[in-house]
């Protein structure tokens, strides 16, 4: 008794607090710092209204050195309070200086024993850091904290842009969502729009700050490791002049410590040495700065240019170092691939890798100029992460607005007198959305859609799985066409998806249903596995699944085409179902008619019709039969499964309704647009007349 089962596994919160002998406030803080959360017990033995924790979690807290610190802090507060109560302020001040300090380093390793775990759990941390960087420092939010957060966020962005790991950008009403891929994990984070944030009174900042306490330290270690993996120095050097001038990412620089890449054990030492070096260099630089201070303003752009060039060189070197042989191999392979198309899997993989490379260098040959009304930090991150060059209007800009090399000019103003500004210079004027949409599409989209003052095409979320959603916005279709043309997207896959969508939209024909049935059976019961279990297996599974699906799709297509060939009647399934109904009705009525006077078998009615019609009718009959069979088998389900089935059907129906609503709305909008354009044209015509 008491050794196994829910009683030994779970402990209520009050019992836990009694065991740890701490207050609720301290317990909550510890929970946040240690990453302990309540669990749903297998059996709520102490009642359903209680909060249960895992016993192991609580015993971990009980052995936590922080707990001792908390007690120390309690004693410290007693001292302070006593001194203050006796008006011994000097004493209070003296004691206050000995305030116990918490060290949270050990928690990082304890909560995330593997680095990959840490990377996986980065989302919330990043969101919080970016939010705090944007918050005003007041009350519990100290200025040090906000500036530290700003620094961390910038270091992260620097890493993302320099490692080219940014994948998607989405500007929403809440802020800007970014998605990066680090170590094969997708990381999403939200950066608030650069305005003063409204702080509602209901928000308890004690909780948020406790989270931040951990996140700050945790993120520092993560960044250190990430930088170390790339062989960069951490923290990156920040050029203060440039920083003050407002160039966010370009003010940073971190040297490649060329030797620090491979051996991990030596890594830390080396990096420390590098840091020492860098500090020495910094001192030198400041000395030099003092000398050059007078001629600074003029020399700044040049200096920047140099830096930029250096950086570019670095990057190029990087490419050369790491991927030169690889790329050579790839190009060779690609040539092979183009030569013999029927090469299978390997080629596919290669092309995929190449594609990714291509995506990462989307803006490689482009030079941007960002107008001053466009948020610079966003554009810098997005453009540099995809290999482009950026300049802006303001101090510290690498090149001026009338530079000849500029290919794209990002403008967010209604319409300006472009004729004078850009008449002589050959460049594209675009709105910032072009950058985001191009990144998400992986293709440079046509610029004319995004001309300044033009009505922008909708900015679509790159995170939506179209197939799952069931609804494809019109603009997405256009983008997909472009992607197929550019070879970014596999054409066949898209066509199948659209076909699928069309078929699912168009009808509830039994044919599709039966195929779905088959697919469902093959998939069988696919239970969400715990993510922390081996991913490799999952990946393999998914691959194999994909293959299976592909083959299935192929089969379907074949079958369909065959059927169509047989029938030679290209009718939509809606029509066919209608025909089905009508023919059914007619046949039944004919039966009646035939039956009343004399007994006559009903099947002879269709004799007069042609062979095509017979085939058609047979197909229709088959369909209706299958439909009826399905209905019958549904009626044979047990009560429980029927309930589940009905629920699922309800869900599917809701989804379909949602999709239908969207489609209807779109149709209405398009109609309205047409209606508004046609009278204009008419009036124009009239005027002409």
């Amino acid at each position, binding site marked *: 008794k008491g050794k196994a089962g829910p009683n030994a596994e779970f402990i209520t919160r009050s019992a836990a607090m009694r065991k740890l002998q701490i207050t609720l406030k301290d317990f909550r803080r510890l929970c*946040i710092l240690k990453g302990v*959360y*309540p669990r*749903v017990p297998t059996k709520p033995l102490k009642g359903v209204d209680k909060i249960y924790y895992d016993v192991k979690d609580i015993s971990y807290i009980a052995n936590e050195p922080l707990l001792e610190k908390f007690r120390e802090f309690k004693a410290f507060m007693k001292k302070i309070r006593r001194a203050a109560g006796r008006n011994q302020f000097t004493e209070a001040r003296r004691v206050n200086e*000995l305030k116990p300090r918490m*060290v949270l380093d050990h928690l*990082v390793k304890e909560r*995330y*024993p*593997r*680095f990959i775990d*840490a990377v996986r759990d980065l*989302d*919330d941390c990043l969101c*919080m850091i970016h939010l705090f960087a944007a918050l005003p420092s007041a009350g519990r939010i100290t200025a040090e904290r906000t500036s530290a957060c700003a620094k961390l966020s910038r270091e992260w962005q620097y890493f993302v842009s320099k490692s080219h790991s940014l994948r998607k950008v*989405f*500007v929403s*009403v*809440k802020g800007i969502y970014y998605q990066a891929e680090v170590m094969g994990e997708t990381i999403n984070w939200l950066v608030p*729009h650069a305005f003063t*944030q*409204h702080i*509602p009174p*209901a928000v308890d900042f004690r*909780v*948020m700050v406790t989270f931040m306490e951990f996140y700050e330290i945790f993120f520092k270690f993560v960044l250190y490791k990430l930088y170390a993996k790339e062989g960069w120095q951490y923290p990156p050097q920040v050029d203060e002049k440039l920083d003050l001038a407002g160039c966010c990412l370009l003010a940073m620089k971190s040297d490649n410590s060329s030797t620090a890449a491979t051996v*991990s054990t030596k*890594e830390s030492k080396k*990096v420390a040495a590098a840091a020492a070096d860098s500090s020495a260099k910094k001192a030198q630089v400041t000395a030099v700065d003092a000398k050059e201070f007078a001629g600074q303003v003029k020399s700044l752009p040049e200096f920047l240019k140099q830096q930029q060039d250096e950086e570019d060189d670095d990057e190029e070197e990087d490419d050369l170092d790491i991927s030169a042989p690889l790329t050579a191999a790839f190009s060779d392979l690609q040539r092979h691939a183009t030569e013999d198309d029927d090469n299978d899997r390997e080629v596919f993989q290669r092309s995929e890798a190449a594609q990714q490379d291509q995506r990462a260098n989307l803006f490689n040959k482009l030079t941007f100029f960002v107008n001053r*009304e466009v948020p610079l930090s966003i554009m810098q991150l997005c453009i540099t992460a995809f290999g482009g060059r950026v300049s802006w209007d303001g101090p510290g800009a690498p090149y001026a607005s009338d530079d000849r090399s500029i290919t794209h000019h990002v403008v*967010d103003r209604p319409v300006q007198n472009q004729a004078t500004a850009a008449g002589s210079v050959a460049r594209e004027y675009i709105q*910032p959305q072009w950058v985001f949409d191009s990144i998400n599409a992986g293709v440079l989209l046509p610029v004319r859609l995004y001309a300044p003052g033009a*009505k*922008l095409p*909708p900015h679509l*979320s790159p995170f*939506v799985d179209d197939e799952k959603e069931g609804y494809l*916005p019109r*603009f997405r279709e256009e983008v997909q066409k472009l992607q197929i043309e550019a070879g970014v997207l596999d054409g066949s896959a898209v066509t199948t998806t659209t076909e699928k969508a069309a078929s699912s939209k168009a009808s509830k024909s039994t044919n599709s249903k039966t195929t*779905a049935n088959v697919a*469902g059976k093959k998939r*069988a*019961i*696919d239970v*969400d596995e715990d*993510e*922390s279990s081996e991913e490799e297996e999952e990946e393999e599974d998914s691959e194999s699944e994909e293959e299976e699906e592909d083959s299935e799709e192929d089969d379907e297509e074949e079958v369909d085409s065959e059927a169509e060939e047989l029938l030679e009647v290209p009718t939509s399934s809606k029509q066919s179902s209608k025909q089905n109904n009508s023919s059914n009705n007619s046949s039944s009525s004919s*039966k009646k008619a035939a*039956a009343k006077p004399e*007994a006559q078998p*009903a099947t002879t009615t269709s004799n007069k019709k042609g062979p095509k019609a017979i085939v058609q009718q047979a197909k229709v009959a088959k369909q209706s039969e299958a439909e009826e069979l*399905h209905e019958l*088998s549904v*009626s*044979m389900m047990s009560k429980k499964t029927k309930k589940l089935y009905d629920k*699922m059907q309800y869900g599917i129906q809701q989804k379909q309704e949602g999709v239908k609503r*969207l*489609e209807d*709305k779109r149709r209405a*909008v398009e109609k309205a647009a047409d209606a508004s354009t046609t009278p204009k044209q008419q009036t124009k015509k009239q005027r002409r007349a």
Partner: protein
Amino acid sequence: MLHVDDLSSDDEDGTRRNTVGRVPLHWYDAFDHVGYDISGEKMMKRKGKDSIDMALQEKDNPNASRLVYDMYNDREVVLSERQLEIIRRIQAGAFAHAEFNDTPDYIDYVSGEKEIMPLSMVPERKAAFQPSKWEMKKVLQIAKAIEEGRYVFGGKTAQKLKEREEKAQQSGIYLIWKDEDDEGELESRRQRYHLPAPKMPLPGHAESYNPPDEYLLTPEEEAKYDAMDPSERPYNFKPKKHTCLRHVAAYSNLVKERFERCLDLYLCPRKLKQRLNIDPEALVPKLPQPRELKPFPNSLVLQFAGHEGAVTCLDVSPDGQYMVSGGEDGTLRLWEVDTGLCRESWSLKEFGKITSAVWNPDAMTPVVAVTAGNTLVLVTPGTGDLEASETAETFLSAILETAEAVTAGAGAKDERGAKTGADKAEQSDDSDADASDADDDHDGRQGGAKQQRRDMKVSWHRSAATPASSSSVRANAKDKYVRGPRVHFSLDASIAQVSWHHKGDYLVVLSPLAQGGRAISVHQVSKAKSQFPFAKSPGRVQAVRFHPFLPCLLVVTQQQVKLYHLVEQKLVKTLLSGCKWLSSVDIHPSGDHLIVGSYDRRVVWFDLDLGATPYKTLKFHEKAVRGVSFHKRYPLFASASDDGSVHVFHGMVYNDLTKNPLLVPLKVLRGHGTEGELGVLTLAFHPKQPWLFTAGADGLINLYQDI
């Protein structure tokens, strides 16, 4: 020094003074004096001065400005210079007397001079006038520390702070994760059982700063959105279209949402949920293809039209050549199955609407039992050959004789006798709980001495009804046998149903509205005997059947099915259907299974070996189930419902007791219309072929065959 003005009146000049004290002077208004002087004499009021006097006085008297009238003593007083000064000071808020000193010099009463005598006689400590040893030690310590360079100015606190700073400098950022860690397994249980929090959902198209138009809210939708509870809204923001990036404003709920996420992270109980990712179609049971289970009736082949109004009952002759049907129009019709011809039509309108018509299961005696209104009629349809007609005639001979007797005139007396007999039987049977009767001959048991019979005599009458329309084709030897209704008897209440015993001698008649045990009556045709097997009604009876081979009677009450053993006179089994109101029943030819239809849309399959609960409850009809039926040869059963459809099932029963019956839906037969609330009212399988007859409220009879 306090200055005392001589303000007191005592030592004033010797003028007369009023001695009344401080009393309100209006007390003296009525008198001509204002009080008394010290000697007790009245102080007279002087004559009041008028304004002229006053003016004159002001002119004449140089002291007029400082003249004050003393009402009390009734005199005029001239204020002195000093008195005026006091008044002025008081008005200014100062001390009244100019001489008053509010800050007098301090007088040191206890002197500061050193006294000679000490207060305490304790001598001074030695330590007070010797240098401190401890201090010397401390100084030496510090001196040594300074010499050695380890002294920190600022004391212990500063030292601690210094130590801490050193520590902080040492612990900076370092490489926590080694590369080899990543390959290793998670060592602790805590990490293995860690449930990572689900990630925040990623934004959809609607959250875009420039969403597609179809995602924007129309005014109606917006009103609906505003009316909704915040927790029910599809998004926690309103989709809004911004024409360009610079129009996008800050999102006011951002901090709140992040805070809520924080709360979720540390307060929300977590659980690993096995989410089923099933294709819904995978749940649908895989049934064998109907075409593998052929033959079964699947298409409408023939319709028998002729009845006016609903057809309530039909039955197929045991040889399968003929079919009789009765309807609400009161006609009984005989049809030829092969051709659909209406052979005969007898009108039983005089008795009422026809409720049931059943062929005698013995093929050699073509007799049809028909119930109409309160009456049971036996009809000889005249099918079959000459021999069959003869056997039918002999079968009915006993009844015909009694009917003969009744018509001869002794009927009234007999009837009376029968009635009294019946009453007696009832009186004597009240003590019996439930009982039944079986014919001794039937089972070969002769131990019926203990059994009390509830015999009764019903008055059989010869029917005079003539065929409404009769084909005159058959003018042969058979004509000597009368075709049509032959004999009938009536009960007190209307009869709902009649059913034959499988041997064809007994009839069970159900009149559900009859009093007490008279609802169910059993009649032996060959001996013209009748009895009420039940003393008490077993509840509202819906249907009655004989067991196919056991001496048992199946009684369907409103919610239960009861199986009575007729010989042992006891209740064998009660089956709980779980339905609210049962309608119909049929027994499988094997006798071990039965299906029951109910008005609440269910069809229930009972396995009699399994217990009181159903083997399977099927709910596929959309309206009340009116009739259910098993096929006698093929593994088929069917149900008819008010929704106008008939469902045909494959119902395979295995001899192996461990194997459950296999039920497969085969076909939904539609072809009947609905009249009001009624659809298909009854159905019957062909005894030899896999054909199904159904009759509906639309007045049609359909024949479905397997094609």
